């Protein structure tokens, strides 16, 4: 409803109560998407835990379901820090998190420090075959007990992504695929691509996160986030 906020006061006064009702109706249905939703009265996402990121994401947060791609030039650039608040809320809602072929071993003390109960975490080891990994990802989407699926797969064909996207949508689950390379013209049904770039030496803890593509955004938006703020007290 950006267009209305920029309109003259007199016009708004004329529209009066009616517009309020219309807004209410429009916002009540998350499936209804409007091109100008960017400033987002409709906040139907999981909050990311980072206010700057919330403000540039449609729906004021991570999508509730579907597939998301996180692109970082190397593993370990802070991509998991971005998702920690989401993981915490998934675990607290009693659901499980499935990690599929993470590049290094997942270190339980760090997760406990972040307030994540490791009893509800399942790890499919890295040396499982790609086919098995994708199969377990799809199965996890179909189970209601899995709230979040994290997968590390560098290259996936468009049809596979489309299939996973459908499974995630129907299963009402959010899947995150971590990639190292960005393919601009990939036919991926990806909703979000977040890119972290290098920094100046004196800004140690901020990372640049870019939303390359998201349903509801017209152009890439980027912001700087202090990812490790909670760690260095």
């Amino acid at each position, binding site marked *: 409803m950006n267009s209305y906020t920029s309109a003259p006061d007199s016009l708004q006064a004329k529209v009066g109560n009616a517009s309020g009702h219309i807004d209410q109706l429009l916002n009540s249905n998350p499936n209804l998407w409007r091109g100008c939703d960017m400033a987002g009265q409709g906040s139907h996402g999981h909050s990311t835990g980072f206010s700057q990121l919330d403000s540039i994401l449609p729906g004021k947060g991570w999508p509730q379901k579907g597939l998301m791609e996180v692109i970082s030039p190397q593993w*370990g650039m*802070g991509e998991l*820090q971005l998702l920690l608040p989401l993981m915490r809320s998934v675990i607290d809602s009693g659901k499980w998190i499935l990690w599929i072929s*993470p590049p*290094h*071993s*997942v270190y339980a003390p760090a997760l406990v420090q972040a307030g994540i109960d490791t009893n509800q975490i399942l790890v*499919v080891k890295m040396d499982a075959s790609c086919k098995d990994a994708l199969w377990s990802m799809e199965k996890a989407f179909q189970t209601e007990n899995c709230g979040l699926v994290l997968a590390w797969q560098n290259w996936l064909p468009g049809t596979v992504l489309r299939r996973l996207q459908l499974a995630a949508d129907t299963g009402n689950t959010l899947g995150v695929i971590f990639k190292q390379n960005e393919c601009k013209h990939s036919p991926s049904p990806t909703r979000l691509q977040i890119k972290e770039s290098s*920094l100046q030496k004196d800004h140690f803890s901020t990372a640049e996160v870019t939303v390359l593509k998201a349903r509801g955004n017209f152009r890439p938006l980027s912001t700087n986030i202090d990812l490790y703020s909670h*760690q260095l007290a």
Partner: protein
Amino acid sequence: MEETKTSGQLSLAIPSKDSPEATSTQMTAKKAPEAGASLSSSSLLNSNLVLSCVDTQINQNQAAGVGLAGVGKAVATSKTNGNPSSNSNSNSNSNSKKSRPSLWYAVYFPQLGTLDDLQQKDALTALAAKAISVSSTVSFHKLALVCEIRSSLGYFGGINLLHDKLKGALSTALIAMDQPEHFFYASSPTVSGSLLLARAGQNKLVYQKSNLRSALGTLPADVLNLSKEQNRRLYNMGIRHLKDIWRLPGDGIRKRFGSEFVDQLNKALGKAQEPTLNYLPPPTFSSSYDLPYELENLDRLLPIVDEIIGQLCDFLTRRDLSTSHLMFSLFHEKRSPTCIEISLRQTSRSSTHFLLLVETYFHNLTIPAAVIAISLVVNQFDAFFSHTDALLLDGRPDATSRENNLNQFMEQLKARLGDNYLKGISCVAEHRPEYASACVDVNSHTKKSSIRKSIQNKVATRPRPIWLLEKPEELVEKNSRLYHRKAISIISGPERIETAWWADHDVRRDYYIAQEANGSRLWIYRERSDERRWFLHGYFS
């Protein structure tokens, strides 16, 4: 004479009793021809049926009448036979008993007395499983087993051979349990008599019931397993041996020592029946199917698997059991069979669930040759617990069904990926970073609420990376700057970890949090030992 008399009376009484019914059916049979000729044949059939019904009723009434009239009589017959039968067990053998009274062989294991109750039970069950090879009736007693051997004496060719066979089996079982292999044994026509003889350590054989009294009489009184107080009282009465008790009047003993004491003695002498708790071998299910032709395609095997699983589920339902461990074998020509073991997180007896798992296993399975036969063996069973649904669900799945879904999901994952690829993680109270996190089997998860607090205490307070490298990577030091992929600058530290000097892998390190020029945050350390090299140990990611 009495029997024929009563049945005659009954047969006379019955027609008068049933006549109203019979006449009424006759009436309907008469009415039927009036209604129409087409019905006549069916009505005739009807009347036939009615007549046969009356016949069976008569038979039933006769039977019932005999049963009722026989209440007084049955006692009389049993008295004349001189064969008291209060026990259902002995009732079934009562006919054979006339010719051959049973012989009980007791084995007494004093060494098991050091174990606790549960271990004793397990040990005796294991020993009974061995003893069942010589006798079909093996019963449990305190620290002892008693087998009925009269029926198997002929088969084994005498008691000596039978004893040798049993001794071999029991000795190996005892050695397997880390127990001394000796035991006491005795045989007599009564269960308690054999037990008393064995407990006294007299490895004796008494064939005749009439000799039992003199054989038992020489036993010391403390074999009776009485309380301290009772033992003391017996001693004060001047009783040292069992024969001393037999000299005393029965009524007086019953008054002073209770009827249990007297019953025990009567049982030992064969004057009273003794019911026994018999060993039942654990159930096993096995089913196999020979294919009429060789099969390469495992999907074609699924209908047969479905049938076998159907048999298994019938088996489980009839015994009210469930299972969590299935073993399939696929047989090939001239090759060793392919074995598929399916373990479930939770016991089940749902055929659809089993079939789904087998399908998932088959999907991943490559067989070395065509399949010619398939078999299923199930040895482990558990009691069946049915699930209950909440009364008011409001369309939401309740906790148990969610739990079920989760279990099914994990079993499917395990079936496809294998145990080694699917892991949970947990914290370990350990200062060395590489041992502070452990991969655990997903089955062994404990309830989260109870463990949560203890975990919080186990974890280090300083920041730890989410990813830990299995093997630390050495960093390059150039012009007093550190490089990994790019230049590294240290943000905070050091955190000194210096421990486990008593173990093989001692740790003397200073840990730092560092940042690479490309933005990733690293956990690096410097060895405090000789070379003071730098290593990368983890990513904060």
